[in-house]
């Protein structure tokens, strides 16, 4: 339903602006051009999506997520103290973070939801705990080792070095995740009333 509003809003804004700015013919041409560009984008992503879905399946099969989780354990204990007493929580949590790292969105979501469920406060089950907020921040900061889709788009637009954005993406993700965690920590100190 949200997308219906967004789409209608975009069409409405375009039409109104074109009327005021006298860009009617360009607007009309934009409709078939945009539709064509949508197919082009989907096709230019197709190869990369197929390859990386396969790679993702392979990584899950050989247990790469499990290996990565073991390496991340010490860090996990610091950010999520609850994992020290609850090994099952530690399992789903590190699984969620590692799946995100490897770009396996489909595998990350169920483990993330499982982690949220295990973090519930039994006295107030409908209230987000501090650990949940941190988990969401880590998930929305998108720490991904290889942003394959963006690289595919860059290749399709004629970029010769699609992966040269990797250092920038890593630095950016690490900064946004750590600032998000810091913000969550500080807000957690202030947010005591409910």
């Amino acid at each position, binding site marked *: 339903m949200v997308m219906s509003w967004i789409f209608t809003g975009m069409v409405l804004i375009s039409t109104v602006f074109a009327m005021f700015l006298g860009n009617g013919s360009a607007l009309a041409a934009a409709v078939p051009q945009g539709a064509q560009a949508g197919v082009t984008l989907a096709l230019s992503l197709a190869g990369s999506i197929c390859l990386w879905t396969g790679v993702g399946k392979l990584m899950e099969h050989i247990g790469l997520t499990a290996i990565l989780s073991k390496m991340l354990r010490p860090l996990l204990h610091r950010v999520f103290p609850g994992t020290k007493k609850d090994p099952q929580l530690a399992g789903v949590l590190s699984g969620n973070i590692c799946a995100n790292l490897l770009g396996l969105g489909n595998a990350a979501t169920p483990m993330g939801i499982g982690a949220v469920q295990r973090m519930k406060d039994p006295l107030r089950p409908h209230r987000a705990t501090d650990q949940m*907020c941190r988990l969401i921040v880590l998930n929305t*900061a998108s720490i991904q080792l290889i942003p394959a889709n963006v690289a595919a788009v860059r290749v399709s637009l004629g970029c010769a070095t699609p992966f040269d954005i990797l250092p920038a993406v890593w630095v950016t993700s690490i900064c946004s995740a750590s600032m998000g965690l810091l913000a969550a920590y500080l807000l957690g100190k202030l947010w005591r009333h409910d």
Partner: protein
Amino acid sequence: MIDYIVPLLLLVICCMALSKKENAYDLLLSGGADGLKLVVSILPTLVLLLTAVTMLRQSGAVEVFSSFFAPIFQFFGIPPETAILVLIRPISGSAALAVGTELMATYGVDSPIGRTAAVMLGSTETTFYTISVYFGAAGIKKTRYTLPAALIADFVGFFMAALTSRIFYA
């Protein structure tokens, strides 16, 4: 060194699979088939969203919009052309992909704007969607400070995307 990351990752996981006597090739193939289904399912979304985004661009709305937000964006060193991407990114992943692709095509993939758009796409997530999926499925109603904290993380991401694109590739 960066050039070898992706080829080495492919090599390492294939070798690991072979050492565990897993059929690496078949797994890659069956995953690829799943991927193809995913492509088919997102194609109509991308057609609709790129139609809307191209309309916004050709109507002149994007330019008006960017110049309206330009003072704030310039203050933080973020190219004002990416304003529409910054606003849509936390709400819809495919719309952000459509906007980002259109930005890269319009200003050039290796231009500072195109690169900033690429880094933004690669290092941020669909915040509102993630919160609604995780908390919705687990039955959490009081989200407390989750949204402000996540939006602060997003903002730092946009800011750092512009900064790293400017410094690393000058």
